[in-house]
């Protein structure tokens, strides 16, 4: 990673009629960095992603990606970026090899070079065995790897990933992220959007976004330090009543799917005091280091899960 910006956004705004989707985004991503944009559904991630990836024009502000203006120099910029979209972007009836070959032609490669490049990617990404198979007949994980191969056809300097492992099982995700780490290890830059903290965690830096604004930006540890203590999780016989009692006693509980979350400066000391005085039966009590979820909770009073994560994903291993 070096301190030359791969991507710079300055005072970006995007409006869709009355909806103000982005409200003044300032951002810099360094070359060789893996950067994550983390926020719940509807936070403005895909809008920002689409502007930086040349698919949308901002209403105000500017963005430069790899030294190119993201609005005025789109064709030059498109030669240097690769994108893995949230939705599948493969022609299902064509073979995997043809999908990659045609994308090579779209990137201006001569036919022979495009064929060689497709072959290299199939081999690198472990897709040689399914090269002749129709893309629609692949498993979810294989499709994602083909999408990644498609994004790498033009040998991009910067890779955009928009919720790239949405819906994948644990093994498929692990394979996918291994490829991404290999790409970053080779000097590439990654800009990813996600609403899963475990996907954002391996990034060098993370920006938390909500309601079109960047709330915090830093390394995962920097962000966790912002919580300023530890987190208590309490599940009681009646969480609503427990929350009222805790508020009346100077705490700030936040409801979550797993129980009440409390950020405490000295959680190990606070826990026995609370358990001793709480006039309700406690079903579970945990103390843990702050997570990115806790940072988001502290900054917004809401959880990332407000975007309704599929249960299978929550049990997934870290990428």
């Amino acid at each position, binding site marked *: 990673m070096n301190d030359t910006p791969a991507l710079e956004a300055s005072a970006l705004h995007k409006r869709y009629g009355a909806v103000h989707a982005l409200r003044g985004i300032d951002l810099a991503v360094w070359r060789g960095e893996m950067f994550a944009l983390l926020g719940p559904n509807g936070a403005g991630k895909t809008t920002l992603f*689409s502007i930086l*990836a*040349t*698919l*949308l*024009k901002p209403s105000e502000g500017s963005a430069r990606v790899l030294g190119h203006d993201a609005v005025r120099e789109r*064709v*030059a910029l*498109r*030669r240097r*970026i690769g*994108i893995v*979209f*949230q*939705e*599948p*972007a*493969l*022609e299902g*009836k*064509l073979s995997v090899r*043809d999908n990659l070959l*045609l*994308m090579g*032609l*779209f*990137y*201006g*490669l*001569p036919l022979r070079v495009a064929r060689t490049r497709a072959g290299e990617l199939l081999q690198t990404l472990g897709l040689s065995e399914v090269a002749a198979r129709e893309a629609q007949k692949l498993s979810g994980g294989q499709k994602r790897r083909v999408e990644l191969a*498609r994004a790498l056809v*033009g040998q991009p300097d910067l890779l955009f990933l928009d919720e790239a492992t949405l819906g994948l099982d644990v093994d498929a995700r692990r394979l996918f992220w291994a490829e991404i780490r290999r790409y970053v290890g080779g000097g590439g830059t990654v800009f990813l959007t996600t609403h899963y903290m475990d996907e954002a965690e391996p990034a060098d830096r993370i920006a938390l976004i909500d309601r079109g604004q960047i709330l915090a930006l830093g390394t995962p540890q920097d962000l966790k330090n912002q919580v300023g203590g530890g987190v208590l999780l309490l599940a009681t016989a009646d969480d609503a009543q427990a929350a009222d009692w805790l508020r009346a006693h100077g705490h700030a509980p936040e409801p979550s799917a797993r129980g009440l979350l409390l950020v405490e400066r000295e959680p190990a000391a606070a826990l026995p005091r609370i358990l001793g005085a709480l006039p309700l039966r406690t079903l579970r009590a945990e103390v843990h280091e702050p997570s990115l979820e806790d940072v988001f909770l502290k900054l917004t009073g809401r959880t990332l899960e407000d975007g309704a994560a599929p249960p299978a994903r929550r049990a997934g291993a870290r990428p």
Partner: protein
Amino acid sequence: MRGLLAVILLDLKRLWVDRVRLISSLIQPLLYLFVLGSGLGASSTLGRSGYLHYIYPGVLALSLLFSAVFAAMLIVFDRQIGFLKAVLVAPVPRVAIALGKVLSGAIQALVPATILLVLLPLLHLDLAPPALLELIGSMILAAVTFSALGVATAARFRSTTVFPIISNAVLLPMFFLSGALYPLGDAPTWLRVLAHLDPVTYAVDLMRGAVLGHWAYPPLLSLAVLAGFIVALTWLATRVFAAGEDT
């Protein structure tokens, strides 16, 4: 140029692997010619054979028009499933994407129309080589015009359910106005005025001129009108593709 060829190659490859679409596109013009020609020809003063000759260019136009516009539906489908985004982020000038789509749609429309061309001897239509070349040239120009119409329209749609409904609502009146099935000279004034605004009219007239040897409009005028439509519609499609997700 490579981008343009990539767009065309992608669409043709997709047509080739989609055998159902390919075969149904080949059968459709035969139905148009023999069902429509026999049905209407029986009651025509021109007689069955004379009427078949008369409507042959009209049937060519019908086949080209519907095949070209429905080839453009792939754009709507691609937008709906997200595939269009992968094309739009490729470093291909937007005009090359629009033109590539127009040309691939025209080629897809010309495939079934070629079947009709092969049937010429069966209709006892004996065209001299210059007339045949003239007819083929007119067919190509008509196919490109209709494809440009389809692409410019489809580029704005997001739903594969709505696009065919709207297309049919527009295409059928365009076809009926064009004089494909009857001589415009005998039509009421209001219909003739509307026909002047319809690109299908000029395409049919060029093809009919090649087949029967007489034109309702000066051929140069028809050529200019169709070329104008192609440029304007391709420009409109280019603008939509340039707007990306802002459309």
